[in-house]
């Protein structure tokens, strides 16, 4: 029998029992839609959390937090990190163990001072909103909010009293010279004062809650501070930058093998992905129960179809239809119920998903009232249906439909021709 004729055959059969077939398809659709929508919540949660993680950090950044043996990272070791394949840059920031205050005229403010390798910072993607990279050791880069934090005594009092002050240093700091006073946290040493000129200002941080008052000084100053202030060993922050996100995992592994504590986006996403994979698998299993319930309907419908058509099946066999063909026709019919149900379920699920993503955040926001405003830039996805979920659900529902059609189809092949032909019309 040609495939087209087989399709015509089952189409004709399904038409003859429109209502029964339609309700069975409806049940199959509901089961499959339930599965997709339930699992889509897992995918949505993962998407939301992943977006948050990726949004809050530079994805190619790998933080080397220290050595597993407790030793501090040496300059030679930092040098070796440059040699790892696909490493674009290694920034090495050392913060002096001292309070750092910048002073210009009658204004002053605490800054987060660090000595850095300017060349590596630039390679790592340091962006300026104004000015240029330093060309001499006396030139520095300042954070975007550096100027804003330079306050007069009067203003500082107001701030302490909880009042708003606007401005800080007015005008551009580019080319301005200021004093940096470093007071060691510990020890008896007097504070030291140095003068620096502002060469460039970093770009505005991506998040409006970050206040950037860093001060990046050329690392030729590190030994100077160290010696003159007799500082304890300083805190070192080493960040390795991969040339591409796909190499982050490899570099992370290499660094781990070398005995460093490493922290990168792949690490974080890795453990997160494990959790979400388990969650999604769990939701799919629960959703499959709905599909299984719907399959009872398919089993019933097909069993009735076989019983009703016993005589016709007998005639088919008598005039030369092979048992295999009979089985195939019935399996195709239950598969058709599964396929139509799945297609409808996918459409319905996308509809429900879009509706949920639009409606639920609105409800959350309004129930949070004004507190919800802070959530403004957090985008919540209630439900995400990736094509993989559609494929998995389709395989499950169509597979289950065919399995439930299996017994009735077998039964059809075993119909005894003589008995069937004896049936009354």
């Amino acid at each position, binding site marked *: 029998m040609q495939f087209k004729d087989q399709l015509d055959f089952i189409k004709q059969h399904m038409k003859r029992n429109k209502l029964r077939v339609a309700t069975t398809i409806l049940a199959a659709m509901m089961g499959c839609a339930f599965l997709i929508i339930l699992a889509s919540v897992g995918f949505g949660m993962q998407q939301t959390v992943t977006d948050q993680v990726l949004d809050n950090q530079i994805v190619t950044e790998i933080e080397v937090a220290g050595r597993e043996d407790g030793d501090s990272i040496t300059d030679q070791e930092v040098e070796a990190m440059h040699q790892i394949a696909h490493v674009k840059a290694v920034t090495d920031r050392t913060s002096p163990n001292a309070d750092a205050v910048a002073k210009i005229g009658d204004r002053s403010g605490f800054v987060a001072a660090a000595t850095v390798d300017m060349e590596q910072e630039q390679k790592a993607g340091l962006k300026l909103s104004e000015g240029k990279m330093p060309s001499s050791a006396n030139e520095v880069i300042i954070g975007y909010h550096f100027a804003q934090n330079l306050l007069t005594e009067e203003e500082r009092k107001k701030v302490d009293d909880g009042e708003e002050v606007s401005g800080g240093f007015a005008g551009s700091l580019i080319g301005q010279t200021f004093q940096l006073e470093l007071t060691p946290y510990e020890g008896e040493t007097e504070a030291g004062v140095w003068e620096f000129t502002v060469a460039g200002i970093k770009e505005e941080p991506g998040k409006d809650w970050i206040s950037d008052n860093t001060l990046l000084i050329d690392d030729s100053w590190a030994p100077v501070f160290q010696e003159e202030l007799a500082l304890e060993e300083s805190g070192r922050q080493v960040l390795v930058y991969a040339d591409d996100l796909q190499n982050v995992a490899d570099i992370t592994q290499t660094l781990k093998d070398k005995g460093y504590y490493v922290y990168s986006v792949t690490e974080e996403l890795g453990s997160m992905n494990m959790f979400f994979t388990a969650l999604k698998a769990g939701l799919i299993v629960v959703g499959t129960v709905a599909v299984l319930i719907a399959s009872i309907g398919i089993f019933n419908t097909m069993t009735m179809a076989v019983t009703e058509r016993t005589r016709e099946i007998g005639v088919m066999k008598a005039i*030369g239809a092979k*048992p295999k063909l009979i089985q195939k026709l019935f399996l195709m019919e239950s598969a058709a119920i599964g396929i139509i149900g799945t297609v409808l379920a996918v459409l319905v699920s996308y509809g429900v998903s879009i509706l949920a993503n639009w409606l639920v955040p609105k409800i959350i926001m309004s129930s949070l009232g004004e507190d919800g405003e802070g959530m403004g830039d957090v985008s919540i996805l209630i439900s995400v249906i990736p094509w993989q979920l559609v494929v998995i659900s389709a395989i499950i529902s169509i597979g289950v439909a065919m399995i439930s059609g299996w017994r009735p189809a077998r039964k059809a092949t075993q119909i005894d021709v003589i008995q069937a032909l004896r049936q009354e019309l």
Partner: protein
Amino acid sequence: MIEIQNLRHTFAIGKKEHERKVPVLKGVTLDVQKGEIVAILGKSGSGKSTLLHILAGFMTPESGSVLVNTKETAKMKEEEKADFRLANFGFIFQNFQLMPGLTAFENVELPLKIKGETVKKRQAKVRALLEKVGLQDVADHYPNELSGGQQQRVSIARALVTDPPILLADEPTGSLDSETEQDILMLIQSLNQSLGLTFVIITHDDEVANVAHRQYRLHDGELVKGEKRHAI
């Protein structure tokens, strides 16, 4: 064409514990030549249908052999039997056994569909056959819109559509009035003469038996040659 040798069959009736053996065929031997019409008569319950069912491969006999075109049907697997039936037999049943959901045309077309013929070949063949049995005007009718005689013509057209050499008929006129019966018998005769088709017809009706070249009577599980009343 057909060689039946020493065919035996016994039915077991009743529950396992007190089952009763009913021997229905006790060594039946029959030869049917190509182009012959053979009629098998017998009382109700004498085993005529059983003989035909074994011949058609619908059931397996207890012992004995059935050769159709020198092929032993009893030893075939189900799938082979189906192919063999499609190629060698056409069936005409007492109650026509048409598909209620298909039109006359589609009913005749069905064996060709099962065979996997193309639409083009099917259309031509079915149209020609419907004309031959005189049903070209009711091709679009469903079985419940046809008279008994018309339905039996559809069933004959369906039996002929795959060009089988042998036609097996179990009481082909059993559900028809005598006038319609004559029409069908004439059709069978003309098909036999024009196409050289072989017929094995089961009947308890002497009118039907009279179109046969040879008649047999199934009695007490054995086949005895019957005397012919009229020459054809």
